[in-house]
């Protein structure tokens, strides 16, 4: 059974701002995925592709305009308020910026214990403190961390605190939105190792949002590539990275940073990576192999790719 299942969700943002005149933008079109226990599904794509919106829809932090969200087999699409809050223990989130996501005025013990107050209200304060200490230890932080404040920690330590805060209610799913992109490479390695260990130990499932393909390749089992609110390709990580079928996936992989100066090559510096087609295939304006038929393609997935002329 999948621990998280999303089917045919759609999200439209109404134009914001005083002068925007109510223009609509479809942030996520008819998107579906399943996440199994112990599995890591990565969502990759550029900014504005809808990957963070998808995560927030799956978390029920945003209301979808259509479609269904199931947590551990239970439809939570229509739950709200207290009923939803009770279920939140199943799915927890880790944010990108460990600096912004911790309350600077709260001791670590209180920040990490917040979820317990909702989900295990019967615990005494001594029991809560013990549980926080155990969870912090699991995330590689000692007991001396309990009574300190966020500014006394480095970026990597704060991200460990963010992970502990999510883990303390014993969720089955962690939604991780760019969890290592604000960290230095040596610290990033520590956090990625920690996430892998925790997954093996507890059978956690991860929905892992990232723009960094090297990180995704290291941590994920499956990957979903998004462009302009559409899933354009999905599949096992080895298949997608070794044999990309969608021209957009290929362009992303080609843009991966090189790992040695001998791989330098000169490219077209003046071409701009802008533009989304409003009809037909959204990628057609930027696609090197687009044909006339693409202008009326409805971007339906077939055999893991949404493309009329897969590679």
């Amino acid at each position, binding site marked *: 059974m999948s621990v998280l299942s999303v089917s045919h969700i759609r999200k439209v943002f109404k134009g914001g701002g005083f002068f925007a005149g109510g223009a609509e933008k479809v942030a996520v079109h008819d998107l579906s995925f399943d996440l199994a226990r112990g599995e890591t599904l990565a969502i990759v794509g*550029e*900014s504005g592709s809808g990957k963070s919106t998808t995560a927030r829809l799956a978390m029920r932090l945003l209301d979808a305009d259509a479609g269904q969200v199931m947590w551990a087999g239970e439809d939570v699409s229509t739950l709200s308020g207290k009923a939803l809050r009770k279920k939140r223990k199943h799915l927890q989130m880790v944010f990108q910026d460990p600096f912004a996501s911790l309350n600077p005025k709260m001791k670590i013990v209180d920040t990490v214990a917040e979820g317990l107050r909702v989900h295990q209200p019967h615990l005494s304060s001594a029991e809560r403190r013990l549980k926080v200490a155990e969870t912090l230890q699991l995330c590689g932080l000692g007991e001396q961390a309990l009574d300190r404040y966020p500014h006394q920690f*480095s*970026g*990597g*330590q704060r991200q460990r605190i963010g992970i502990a805060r999510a883990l303390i209610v014993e969720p089955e799913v962690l939604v991780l939105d760019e969890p290592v992109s604000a960290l*230095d*490479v*040596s*610290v*990033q*390695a*520590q956090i*990625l*190792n920690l996430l*892998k260990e925790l997954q093996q130990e507890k059978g956690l499932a991860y929905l892992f949002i990232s*723009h*960094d*393909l*090297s*990180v995704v*390749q*290291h*941590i994920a089992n499956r990957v979903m590539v998004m462009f302009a609110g559409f899933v354009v390709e999905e599949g096992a990580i080895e298949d997608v990275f070794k044999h990309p079928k969608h021209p957009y996936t290929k*362009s*992303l992989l*080609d*843009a*991966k*940073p*090189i*790992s*040695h*100066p*001998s*791989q*330098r090559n*000169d*490219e*077209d*510096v*003046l*071409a*701009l*990576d*802008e533009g989304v087609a409003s009809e037909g295939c959204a990628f057609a304006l930027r696609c090197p192999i687009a044909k006339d038929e693409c202008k009326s393609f409805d971007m339906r997935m077939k055999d893991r790719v949404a493309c009329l002329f897969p590679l």
Partner: protein
Amino acid sequence: MLEIRNLSLSIPVSGQHILAVSNVSLTLEAGKVLALVGESGCGKSLTAQSLLRLGEFQGVNKEAGDIVLHDKSLFDVSDEELRHIRGGVISMIFQEPMTALNPVFSIGSQILEVIHLHTELDKDAAVQRALALLADVGLQDGEQLMQQYPDSLSGGMRQRILIAMAMAGEPEFIIADEPTTALDVSVQKRIIALLRNLQREKGLGMLLVTHDFGLVAEMADEVAVMYAGEIVEQASVMDIFDKPSHPYTQALMKCRPEYTKDGQLAVIPGNVPSPGDWAQGCRFAPRCNQANQACSATPVSLDAWHSGAHQARCIRVDAS
């Protein structure tokens, strides 16, 4: 030539000044890209900003050393000369294209301001110059673009505009502080290629400040690796990638995810020490898997190990 000579800088921390950069020497030459690499808190941005004497605004003090531009100390120039040097001889491209542009002024007025600051052009000629600068960075629709405001533009376009502005005073040197980290991967690649082209075409000397070895591999000729306020290794880009010699450089390279396909990534135990918490002797020794007692006994000089122009601040390179 632009030289940093034995520069030491201190920063204000709760009422006192603490050494944050110690005894750094670097040389920028026309037509060459020097990458300054290290993790957050190692002093690389402080060092880079000192080239424009920008740190002074945040209370950074020069404790020792000098910065020399064409045989003249940057600390001996008048305020007027300094204003000309900033942008006219040495320009800077910042990390955050989202915050480096002023949201309430049009793109045109921000570019024209820089042009007026550095040239005597009249209004029409300045507009022509602005259009040419925008075309140089791949923005063809300049006239329309100059009417627009920053918030209507993508991150990639804003970074192109900032690069155009940095070029407006026809500088000899460019300091690029993490110029691509805030951008999408596909945009990154294009901005890298654009910077490399401009740098070559105009024969600019560039200091590239980054923590990203991918960017170093793409752009650098020379590399200096910083740790805890000092340079620990310096070499050509090929030598840094083929024969990283300082254990810190080796460790940084190994913890990149592309280095390990499966299983655990290599890590460096512990954290980067803050200024004031630096170890005696080799500052990396407390985290180094190759250190012995001798490493912590006395400070290590940058040429403790060397092979040609390749230097490493380590007494154990040949032992390990």
